[in-house]
């Protein structure tokens, strides 16, 4: 990532834009109380409170995330989310149980979901943007539905024919679709994330994954061989078999549990690492340009470190398991705080006092559309 950081640094030096560091002012303890009450109400209402819980949680994180001392806000109407959740829930229920009632339903549901997925994506990006505000000004999303179908249906269908090699391109296009179509007031997002970088990241991840898998498999073979010897030994000793069998019983589950953790942990670590690198790349190649002017730009610089991020992620996971889930609010705050701390924004002073141009009308039209999937960009 050094190259990317250097690049961002050069730009900054040239333009002398003011650097703003977003801050997160929330706390794990305070969020815990919101979380536990949300849980209680979800349980009491058989899950129907979920949209209200989601909005409250997101509002807590947005309102405590400050850029230039000004908070973000999340204004979604939970009743809208409820409609979306019910539709997704119906899909899921049909997928899980459809075949029990009428054979073949699952296949139809999968096809139907594949066909509606691009539309859901398109809708949820719009919903997310429209309901996110900074200084009481809504973001907007101006992506076209056709592009959503090209990326999330057309390109996706090519995955099997290209043996998955098209996937990094899809990831790049997907990020371009979101970032490049974001707008704020008189500002329009531009995304310059490079396809080459996406390929480099995914191929490197593939290499690391295969390498780690080899290590794991060989370690397992070694362990298995050890146990084989132990068993043979037990049989050979005959008379003392009882005692030896006891030993075997006590340790037999170790490789199983260890293997499960590693086979589960390796892909999770690689995927999370990919997410971190891609996230940096996307932010570092995203900028806001003033519509009708080439002069002022707002740039972003994300410097998440893979090792630090994975450290937080896996220690969170461990603590969540050890506390039967109770650590979850602190885990979420920790991760969010780190993400925010690694982001810098250059040139926010240009954003101030810019009048919303096309933004307000777009928001008004979009507002009347029904919104389905909830989507999180995560600042």
């Amino acid at each position: 990532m050094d190259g990317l950081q250097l690049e961002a640094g050069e730009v900054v030096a040239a333009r002398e834009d003011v650097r703003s560091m977003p801050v997160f002012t929330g706390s794990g303890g305070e969020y815990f109380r919101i979380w536990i009450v949300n849980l209680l109400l979800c349980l009491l209402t058989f899950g129907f409170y979920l949209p209200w819980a989601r909005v409250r949680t997101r509002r807590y994180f947005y309102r405590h995330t400050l850029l230039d001392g000004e908070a973000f806000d999340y204004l979604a109407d939970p009743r809208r989310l409820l409609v979306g959740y019910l539709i997704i829930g119906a899909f899921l229920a049909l997928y899980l149980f459809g075949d029990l009632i009428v054979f073949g339903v699952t296949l139809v549901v999968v096809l139907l979901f594949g066909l509606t997925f691009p539309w859901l994506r398109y809708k949820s990006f719009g919903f997310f943007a429209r309901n996110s505000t900074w200084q009481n000004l809504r973001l907007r999303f101006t992506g076209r539905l056709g592009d959503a179908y090209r990326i999330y249906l057309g390109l996706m269908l090519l995955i099997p024919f290209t043996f998955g090699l098209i996937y990094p391109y899809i990831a790049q296009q997907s990020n371009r679709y979101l970032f490049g179509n974001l707008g704020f007031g008189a500002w329009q997002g531009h995304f310059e994330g490079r396809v080459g970088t996406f390929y480099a990241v995914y191929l490197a991840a593939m290499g690391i994954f295969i390498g780690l898998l080899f290590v794991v498999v060989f370690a397992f073979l070694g362990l298995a061989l050890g146990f084989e010897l132990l068993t043979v030994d037990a049989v050979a000793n005959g008379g003392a078999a009882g005692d030896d069998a006891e030993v075997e019983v006590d340790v037999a589950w170790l490789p199983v549990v260890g293997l499960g953790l590693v086979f589960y942990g390796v892909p999770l670590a690689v995927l999370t690492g990919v997410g971190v690198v891609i996230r940096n790349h996307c932010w570092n190649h995203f900028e806001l340009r003033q519509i009708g002017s080439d002069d002022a730009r707002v740039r972003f610089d994300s410097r998440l470190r893979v090792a630090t991020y994975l450290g937080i992620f896996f220690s969170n996971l461990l603590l969540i398991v050890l506390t039967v889930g109770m650590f979850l609010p602190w885990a979420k705050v920790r991760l969010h705080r780190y993400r925010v701390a690694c982001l810098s924004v250059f040139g926010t002073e240009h954003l101030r006092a810019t009048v919303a141009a096309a933004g307000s009308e777009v928001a008004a039209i979009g507002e009347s559309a029904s919104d389905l999937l909830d989507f999180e960009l995560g600042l």
Partner: protein
Amino acid sequence: MEPVAGRYYDGRRAEARDVVVSARPGHELRIAAVDGADEWRVPWRAIELEPALGRLPRRLRLADGAMVEIAAADLPQAWLRSLRGSRHLALVHWLESAWFGWSAAIVGVVVLGVLLVWVGLPWTADRVARQLPPEVSQRLSSEALILLDRRMFEPSQLPQERKSALRAGFAELVERVDDPTPYRLLFRHSRVGPNAFALPGGEIIMTDQLVELLGGDPDASVAGDAALYLVMAHELGHIHHAHGMRLLLQRAGLAVVAAILFGDISSAIGLAAALPTLLDSGYTRAFEFEADAYAARVGVAGGLGVEPMVAALSRLEAVSGQQPLPWLSTHPASAARIEALRRAAADAEAR
């Protein structure tokens, strides 16, 4: 009424303005810029107060898209009483803020969570399983059998007359339990050693290895194939109580609950994946006890008792040997099962 300090955002400009806010509650809000340049008057009905959240400043949304932010502590009580939205989620905010409120929420979540997992889900799954038409479990059965035959089984190598004898005994057993389900007894040579399976549609599969291990018991205290018939009765119990379908439904329910509780954070994936597995083994063990109780009733009614089953359990444990971790196991430890079996038999005899 004392005016309060606030920040005004017009919704068109990314810029905050320091303002002084005063009001005639119920009538009008007056917002004056500190620099004296502007003043806005807003009818009381055109204002909506956003729900309180932690100690964050309160936001008043005005009908024209503007917003005024006022520190929570500064907001006069008189305004709160009449502002639209001021009671919205007020109880939720009280629960979150008051010591008593969130402590009660912790207790509530633990109690409700346990109730949901141990009572609510099993009860619902039981009800739903009973409502499903029999074709559903029959189709599930035939699909499962195809899969099992491909992965786990080979054709049985038992002599024909042995199978016929056992089938005759099985038919007698089925007649005694008086159940409309079309039960069938199947034999298979297994790659997994001695075992018996029940499929939800009514098929009971016994492996050759199990028949060889438990049949014609040389133990003088046990008559002939009694242990085998009790194992059959145990599997009949599984089918009678629709355990297969209930397990399927309970698993789906658990997955949904886990998704709702932990779905909003990726680092919870681990817990969401591990928790159902742990609880799942709890469910299957409960089913084993239920099937054992059924077998005990059938055994006592048929004059077989439960002792052959007790002997069979010890024998099976000796053969299969290692029980990994008791709480990860799908079958309860033999000692506990034997005790429960004898208790169930005593109950059946008392009746």
